[in-house]
């Protein structure tokens, strides 16, 4: 049993915040306007009265429990998994639970309400368990008082409280009214993982029924009577700014209410550091088609404010700054120069990847209704709290008068960490003095920036006469920031080691894209390791395991950032599950392992050639993310990021000319489709009782390396440059 504190500083963990008003947190339930939010097939009937237990939990008189999910939902399924953790400790059957999106209220949730860095479950683990355990404790206290017994003589399980040495029992629904406002002790006992009934099971996406019936869930679906739809036009190139446009002509168009230039400049850098277009043209009308049509009639004077870049310039810059760029971070163990000079074999390879957009299926949008001293914003954001601060600063309205409501998001991938779209909506609403919903077209979205940076890294390995890895170096650069993690593998596993991360510059705006930096580095490093293993005449898995042995038993230099045992553990598991090396099954299989977001993932990919075209046939994946909350949801996440990793490495790139992406929509930008997707993915979890870590991102990076290594087996070509399909077309003809 774990004992956990229920107070942070002097503040109680779980008192319902004053901001919630009358002790009730209002869930955001505009989505299903008339119908009840409660699905029909529940284990208990719909209550007449609800009682607020704490910021996460309210219990109805029938025993139905509403659990508020605190974090933004971008498809990582936290709306199911986070409430599962609360329900486990509250000890209530899952079919008594309904889930609602919580409002932005970090004081009440005691949990950072953002979706990023695969952090939701990791950071929520303690607050969510405490919320459930505290709720259970309050129900026990209320029962003890009612029956005149001690809490010690009571047990709570499956929504029912029983007398340990007696026959009395009472359901949560029957006692909930008496639990309201009771104090929670300074310390609470949490369940032992071996006693979990819900955590580790598979529970279906709580919003599944709404998704498959097309209910309004997303920002783009939001409507308010009297609102205008606002289209935007940002400069067509990075390095350009809007000067003037044919305003009167646009305003005269049918259905157009107004058109103007709007400024959403926000000085704080957090989540806003690379927005290239703080000034936009906004066109307001009654319907989306009217404003999209008006956009096509725009005639704009743009002015150049900085250089208009091209892909050729980007390549030149990366080549130059890989040598001459400023070293931002580094690590050196032993004497790499001397070791390379003495090595019998030296292998050096260069890897690159292009800029890529996030391309969330739901383009950027936000609703804003700005009044004189208050503002309401509704929409898809991964960072609602930062959005509240930013909008407050932009409008010069106190933070407590800015309401930010989170909708379900049509994908995030890092794109909606950024604040510009909320700020733009607020600036437009303020200027027009009415509620507006701002909508980006796909073209606006794909050309706005916030891209995954372009990268270039050079890896070098030295082997001695016994084929031991005696020297290793990596140097990497990006536009603008480099991709190298100096303290990650193989740091600690090689006597002579050098890692240097360098920066360059660009005016193309970049941002966090699923597994930032790892999304490139894992592929480069793991294909390089594969090539080195081959040169050392060793099996690629055995070669990696030898290095982990060294990191475990005889670590080199200062502390490295991974747990070598867990890293080796996923490799061993994937080796077993994929029948690696047994018979001829190793043919056309590639392996990779990577550690990021505190989780360990190893992937084996098998590729087949159909009419000379490679296709991923099967994927085996082993994952160590500690305790798995929702097994099926976790598996879905891992499968998705594997295909995502394969797809982007294989097919996707943005090329630039005259400061602008030449790909503006899905007609020229390649994204992986059904027919290119793997036929089968098998996912295996390492069983342990370690606190859970991230799962939204970590399976993407190793998929890239395993793909490159499998493609080599299938085609004889090593893949160095993304998108791989280009290099393969040349080698396969």
């Amino acid at each position, binding site marked *: 049993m774990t004992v956990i504190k229920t107070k942070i500083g002097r503040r109680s963990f779980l008192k319902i915040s004053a901001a919630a008003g009358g002790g009730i947190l209002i869930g955001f339930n505009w989505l299903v306007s008339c119908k009840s939010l409660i699905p029909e097939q529940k284990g208990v009937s719909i209550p007449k009265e609800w009682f607020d237990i704490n910021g996460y939990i309210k219990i109805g008189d029938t025993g139905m429990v509403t659990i508020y999910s605190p974090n933004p939902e971008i498809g990582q399924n936290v709306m199911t998994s986070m409430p599962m953790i609360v329900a486990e400790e509250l000890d209530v059957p899952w079919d008594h639970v309904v889930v609602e999106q919580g409002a932005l209220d970090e004081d009440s949730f005691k949990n950072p309400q953002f979706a990023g860095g695969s952090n939701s479950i990791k950071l929520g683990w303690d607050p969510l368990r405490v919320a459930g355990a505290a709720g259970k404790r309050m129900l026990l206290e209320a029962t003890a008082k009612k029956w005149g017994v001690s809490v010690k003589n009571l047990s709570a399980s499956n929504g029912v409280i029983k007398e340990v040495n007696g026959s009395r029992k009472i359901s949560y629904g029957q006692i909930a009214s008496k639990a309201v406002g009771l104090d929670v002790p300074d310390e609470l006992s949490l369940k032992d993982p071996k006693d979990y009934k819900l955590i580790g099971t598979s529970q279906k996406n709580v*919003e599944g029924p709404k998704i498959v019936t097309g209910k309004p869930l997303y920002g783009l679906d939001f409507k308010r009577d009297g609102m205008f739809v606002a289209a935007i036009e940002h400069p067509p190139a990075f390095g350009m700014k809007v000067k003037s446009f044919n305003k009167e002509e646009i305003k005269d168009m*049918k259905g157009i209410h107004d058109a103007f230039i709007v400024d959403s400049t926000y000085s704080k850098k957090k989540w806003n550091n690379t927005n290239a277009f703080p000034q936009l043209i906004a066109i307001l009308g009654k319907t*989306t088609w009217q404003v999209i049509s008006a956009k096509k009639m725009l005639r704009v004077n743009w002015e150049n404010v900085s250089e208009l870049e091209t892909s050729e310039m980007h390549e030149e810059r990366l080549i130059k700054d890989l040598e001459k760029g400023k070293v931002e971070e580094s690590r050196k163990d032993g004497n790499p120069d001397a070791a390379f000079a003495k090595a019998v074999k030296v292998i050096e390879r260069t890897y690159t990847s292009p800029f890529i957009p996030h391309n969330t299926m739901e383009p950027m949008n936000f609703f804003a209704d700005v009044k004189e001293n208050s503002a309401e914003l509704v929409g898809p954001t991964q960072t609602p709290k930062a959005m509240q601060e930013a909008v407050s600063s932009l409008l010069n309205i106190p933070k407590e008068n800015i309401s930010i409501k989170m909708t379900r998001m049509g994908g995030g991938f890092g794109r909606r960490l950024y604040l510009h779209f909320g700020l733009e909506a607020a600036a437009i609403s303020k200027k027009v003095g009415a509620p507006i919903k701002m909508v980006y077209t796909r073209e606006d979205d794909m050309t706005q920036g916030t891209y995954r940076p372009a990268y270039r890294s050079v890896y070098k390995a030295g082997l001695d006469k016994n084929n031991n890895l005696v020297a290793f170096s990596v140097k990497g650069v990006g536009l603008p920031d480099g991709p190298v993690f100096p303290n990650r593998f193989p740091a600690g596993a090689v006597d002579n080691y050098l890692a240097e991360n360098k920066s360059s510059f660009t005016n193309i705006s970049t941002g966090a894209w699923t597994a930032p930096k790892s999304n490139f580095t894992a592929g480069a490093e793991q294909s390089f390791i594969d090539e080195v293993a081959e040169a050392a005449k060793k099996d690629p898995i055995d070669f990696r395991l030898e290095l982990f042995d060294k990191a475990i038993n005889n670590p080199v230099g200062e502390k490295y950032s991974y747990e070598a045992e867990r890293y080796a553990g996923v490799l061993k598991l994937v080796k077993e599950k994929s029948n690696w090396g047994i018979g001829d099954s190793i043919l056309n299989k590639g392996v990779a392992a990577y550690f990021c977001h505190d989780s360990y993932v190893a992937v084996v990919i098998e590729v087949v050639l159909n009419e000379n075209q490679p296709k991923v046939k099967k994927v085996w994946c082993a994952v160590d993310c500690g305790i798995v909350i929702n097994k099926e949801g976790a598996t879905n996440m891992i499968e998705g990021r594997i295909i995502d990793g394969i797809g982007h490495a294989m097919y996707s790139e943005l090329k630039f000319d005259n400061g602008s992406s030449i790909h503006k929509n899905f007609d020229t930008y390649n994204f992986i489709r059904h027919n290119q997707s793997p036929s089968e993915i098998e996912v295996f979890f390492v069983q342990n009782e370690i606190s859970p870590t991230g799962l939204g991102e970590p399976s993407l990076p190793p998929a890239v390396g395993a793909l490159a290594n499998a493609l080599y087996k299938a085609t004889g070509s090593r893949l160095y440059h993304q998108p791989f399909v280009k290099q393969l077309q040349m080698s396969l003809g």
Partner: protein
Amino acid sequence: MASFTLNINGEKKQVDVDPNTPLLWVLRDNLNLVGTKYGCGLSQCGACTVHLNGAAVRSCVLPVSAVINQPITTIEGLSENGDHPVQKAWLEEDVSQCGYCQPGQIMSAVALLKNNSNPTDEDIDLAMSGNICRCATYVRIKKAIKTASKL
């Protein structure tokens, strides 16, 4: 502006819009049927898929004036209680991540199964490759289509 009578999910609907307005925006803006999604506006991603005379079409490039009085089915009209076999299979296989593209995927899958009750992997690839899923739930979609074919 002109007035059009549309036959949507078995009901006659009157709308007053520009004849060039794509059906997608009429559904979303004028008729409050927002289950049909905008993704690209170029018929490249499939998020806006609806049925016109029973066939899967991309509503983002279909002018409203071209569909007058022809039967149109949207995700909202697929079943009364969300229990169409394909919807049930989607829940059974727990397909959705963000879920945004899934109404379009479901509409394409329903059209496929209507013409081919037992599709092979290749049949599914052929019928579904016009529908992008950015969360890459492709393996589950394929499974769900096979599950639906047995329901």
